[in-house]
């Protein structure tokens, strides 16, 4: 390879690497700078004292607290569906399934992983339409529907993480259970799953992060701009959520103060998801280090 061509490639690589770092840096700095002065109880609770809002259920109309609670609730519900389901499915595919079933599930998981979130939202909405035409004529979009759709969205992460964590276990571990006379259930419970737990946990954390950030699904399945100044009150009702709140503020803010609230909300959401992903990343790294030694 000619020297000058090499030099260009080297230079381009440096530009690319530092360019990417710069973009991330600018993004974070921009967010922090625009929201710095608004960070604090006022961003979350407006004029309502925070203890009243958090513990006594006082309504907050000009802070992002309802959206924060909405997101946490939504995430908890969808993870509560997706994590056990994904764990179970992943274990089955890894340990029990025959090759054909394994192949179908793997295909299904791959397709599920690639589904655009707006299509998932469309699916959720169409489920309600179908319910209304058949068995449940009063059905409406709401928290439970959104949670189910998000659970489906993150299910692939959970299944794949479980599958690959179990697949990565060395033979010595796999032989441990049967060599001690353990039944399949005992082997799974006491040897395999604990050994793979780091990878599984990492998948769980990734699922939670993905559930927290999604906007398109909830846009069509029950997220609204304002829902009573509190967290969601019942499973079938409309709810607020951080990503949707950010979207609404971005599109239709009326005042500069509202826009600043949007920046604050973006920073809160970013901190939440970044923390989760860092956690998952560290877990994954320590897992690899463990089994590669």
């Amino acid at each position, binding site marked *: 390879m000619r020297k000058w061509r090499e030099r260009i490639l080297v230079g381009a690589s440096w530009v690319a690497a530092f360019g990417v770092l710069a973009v991330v840096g600018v993004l974070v700095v921009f967010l922090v700078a625009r929201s710095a002065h608004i960070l604090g109880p006022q961003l979350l609770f407006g004029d309502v004292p925070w203890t*009243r809002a958090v*513990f*006594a*259920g*006082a*309504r907050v*109309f000009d802070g992002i607290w309802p959206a924060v*609670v*909405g997101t*946490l*609730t939504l*995430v*908890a*519900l969808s*993870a*509560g569906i997706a*994590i056990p389901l994904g764990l179970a499915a992943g274990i089955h595919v890894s340990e029990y399934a025959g090759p054909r079933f394994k192949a179908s599930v793997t295909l299904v998981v791959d397709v599920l992983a690639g589904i655009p979130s707006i299509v998932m939202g469309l699916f959720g909405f169409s489920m309600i339409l179908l319910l*209304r035409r058949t068995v449940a*004529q*009063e059905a*409406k*979009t709401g928290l439970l529907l959104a949670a189910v759709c998000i659970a489906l969205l993150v299910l692939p992460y959970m299944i794949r993480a479980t599958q690959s964590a179990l697949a990565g276990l060395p033979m010595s571990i796999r032989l441990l259970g049967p060599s001690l006379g353990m039944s399949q259930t005992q082997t799974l419970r006491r040897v395999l*799953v*604990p*050994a793979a*737990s*780091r990878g*599984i*946990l990492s998948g*769980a*954390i990734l699922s*939670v992060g993905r559930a927290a950030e999604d906007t398109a699904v909830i846009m069509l399945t029950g997220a*609204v*701009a*304002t*829902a*009573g*100044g*509190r*967290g*969601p*009150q*019942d*499973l079938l*009702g*409309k709810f607020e959520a951080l990503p949707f709140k950010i979207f*609404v503020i971005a*599109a*239709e*803010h*009326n005042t500069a103060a509202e826009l600043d609230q949007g920046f604050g909300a973006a920073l809160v959401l970013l901190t939440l998801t970044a923390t989760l992903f860092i956690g998952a990343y560290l*877990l994954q790294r*320590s897992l690899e280090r*463990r089994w590669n030694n």
Partner: protein
Amino acid sequence: MMSARFSTRSLALLMTLLLAVGLLGVAGCSSADEDSATEETPAADTAAEATAFDAFAELEGDLDIAGGTAHIPVMEAAAADIMTSNDAILITVAGGGSGVGVEQVGEGLVEIGNAGRALKDEEVEFYPNLVSFAFAVDGVAAVVHPDNPVTELSAEQMQAIFAGEITDWADLGGDAGEIHLFTRDEASGTRDVFWSKALAEGDIAVEANVVASNGAMKTAVSGDPQAIGYMGIGGIDDSVAGVTFDGVAPTQDNAKDGSYVVTRKLYMNTKGEPEGLTKAFIDFILGADGVSYIVDGGYIPIF
């Protein structure tokens, strides 16, 4: 396996934490009932507000409102005060545009569907038992950036601009520069009214940028010195400038006395006659108590 046990425990802990948060969130209301008794209200208004919200005192339940984006400030402000007076009520407000409002209330997905225009014939045919309640008058004005020297347009110019035939501000006596068109989505009642009354049902250029609400229109136009769009007059503030149309300034007074012709009424629609919480809300908006919210929104109440 020490670290593996740690991870298993962490997984269990994570799940428990998540479920706890979820339950806390959903159940958070139960302690709220004690709160209304100890609410601090501004002393001066207590007496007046007490009577205004009496109609809601015995009520409870959910009220979902969706539709016209022009209505949102009025709906949200009224909802906030009503909910503050009675903790057992939940009113949610969503946008989407007039078309969405009519469809959703017609299908029974929401209790009140807002529209910034009268029901269309197809809608009346498709949803025969919709009841409309007009509560305000609003004008629809073309808006430009406050720094734009062009402040008035004739009907012909307006049509030509939105049809994409005039493309430069210089042709209108302004500073040279491309005209950036902004229009609303097809569900918009604001769009319907502007199209039929200001554009005489002429074409809107397909190159126009599409925004999904009055608020989004304001955001777009206030950020671009070369932009032109249209929105309800009630939402106009210092960040955009209304355009005088055929010699008439776009103010709500002109809209009310008829000199500004591009006007519409804001409607709340229900499926069948409203009852319970829905009825109370509609009566509230239409009554004397609703006037201040309508006026604060920038609209003219219909008595």
